[in-house]
């Protein structure tokens, strides 16, 4: 079956512009995660959705970052007024919580000029 799909794969934007990143999880996966991976660094937790529960937003670095999820399907991560330090690979993962294994997408590489 299809894996986790992220789009776009690459995004180049100018400082101050807004960007929207999309994640299509594996069908039936109730949990969805967003991470940020800066060059040469580890995965930084951003936000987590689980079913109809309120999302855990504790990792969002500033109020410029927001994310939404429609039911148990698509999620979008929005970064407003992008800054150069937002340049990173943004990874999405989905999971069946009963299995406790995350399946990752290929990521969106964001470059803010």
């Amino acid at each position, binding site marked *: 079956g299809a*894996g986790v799909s992220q789009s776009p794969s690459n995004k180049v934007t100018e400082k101050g512009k807004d960007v929207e990143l999309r994640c299509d999880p594996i069908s039936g996966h109730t949990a969805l995660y967003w991470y940020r991976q800066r060059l040469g660094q580890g995965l930084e937790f951003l936000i987590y959705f689980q079913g109809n529960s309120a999302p*855990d937003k504790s990792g969002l670095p500033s109020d410029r970052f927001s994310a939404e999820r429609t039911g148990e399907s698509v999620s979008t991560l929005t970064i407003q007024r992008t800054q150069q330090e937002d340049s990173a690979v943004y990874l999405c993962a989905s*999971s069946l919580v009963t299995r*406790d*294994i995350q399946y990752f997408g*290929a*990521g969106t590489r964001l470059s803010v000029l």
Partner: protein
Amino acid sequence: AQSVAQPEDQVNVAEGNPLTVKCTYSVSGNPYLFWYVQYPNRGLQFLLKYITGDNLVKGSYGFEAEFNKSQTSFHLKKPSALVSDSALYFCAVRDADSGTYKYIFGTGTRLKVLA
């Protein structure tokens, strides 16, 4: 608060030799521990996990990891390294008593297996 430490940025090992990639963790409750691998130009893939039971966990591609509660460690091991094992390895932890499925990842260790 949860945390994971991978003290080595890079590990070099000769092909055929045993390898160890280190991970230590800190959680207030019971730890669920994971290893993921990121091959060049590919997404992260699950390798293995420790939930409960035997302290030695076996996973994909011949990897195994040993849970040591007293040392709060979960080191990844393989008896005989292959050049194709060269990749970036991440350790992750979840606090099973926290009521959430939030994972904290380490900073990653780059494994280089030399022919």
